[in-house]
């Protein structure tokens, strides 16, 4: 029962590349507006979205997590859904759209694994569940149009 080989994906440059593609394609009409950012000390009102890569024969899944301030999560949701600047972002839209970002980022990272794995549906909450033995294997802070998003990869033990 071996862990998923995260060599190719536990790499901030690789994660940045995937994030750039995701934002460029789905949000910014092909233009790359995502750059390496600076992770904040903490988030005041965090929103977290995550998906897990799992294999039947391995207890050690890999979690892709996207975290941001609620206000920034709203900004990216508005952009993704082509909403008006002052249109309120409902809970359903937030969960669905912010979750979808984690889904596409995680899905693309999953394609880089040497072996096929399944992807769970995205979950969105303020904080992810604490299982006690997770281990962060990569963290990539991003800057997009002035907003900060932190993508992190975790081994779930």
């Amino acid at each position, binding site marked *: 029962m071996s862990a998923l080989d995260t060599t190719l994906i536990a790499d901030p440059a690789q994660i940045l590349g995937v994030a750039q*593609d*995701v934002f*460029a*394609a*789905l949000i910014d*009409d*092909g233009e790359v507006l995502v750059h390496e950012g600076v992770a904040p000390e903490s988030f005041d009102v965090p929103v977290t979205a995550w998906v897990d890569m799992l294999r039947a024969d391995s207890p050690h899944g890999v979690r892709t997590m996207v975290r941001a301030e609620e206000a920034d999560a709203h900004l990216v949701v508005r952009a*993704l*859904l*082509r909403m008006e600047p002052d249109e309120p972002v409902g809970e*359903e*839209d937030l969960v*669905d*759209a912010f*979750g*979808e970002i984690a*889904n*596409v980022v*995680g*899905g*693309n990272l*999953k*394609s880089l694994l040497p072996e*096929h794995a*399944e*992807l769970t*549906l995205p979950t969105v909450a303020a904080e992810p569940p604490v299982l006690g033995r997770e281990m962060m294997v990569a963290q990539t802070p991003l800057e997009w149009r002035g907003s900060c998003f932190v993508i992190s990869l975790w081994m779930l033990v």
Partner: protein
Amino acid sequence: MKALVIDDSRTMRRIVSSVLRGLGYEVIEAGDGQEALDALQASDGVVLCCIDWNMPVMDGLTFVTKVRERAEWRDITLMMVTTEGEHGQIVRALAAGAHEYLIKPFTPDALRDKLELLGLLPVQEVR
């Protein structure tokens, strides 16, 4: 021309539908493979299905297989629109009967390009 967009993410359905409508399509949506089969049963004139792979109840690959079993749906173009980007996955989808494959994330232009090569742009521009 009518298209069926199948994805369990409302966000992704909105994105794909919006591009298709912009190109002149009438769009119906479904949240999983079973809903999609029901929609095909109930609607006439669907020429294109944009299909996500990973969905609850019935996934995209199963949907493709089931559509290809029905003679009356033989002329419907089936295009996967999914994050599944491994070479082997694409082979599986094409082997199951999908005609085309668009990897997420995709730009609106990329979707348009696929439709052009399939001959499925409602108004092929005369240039």
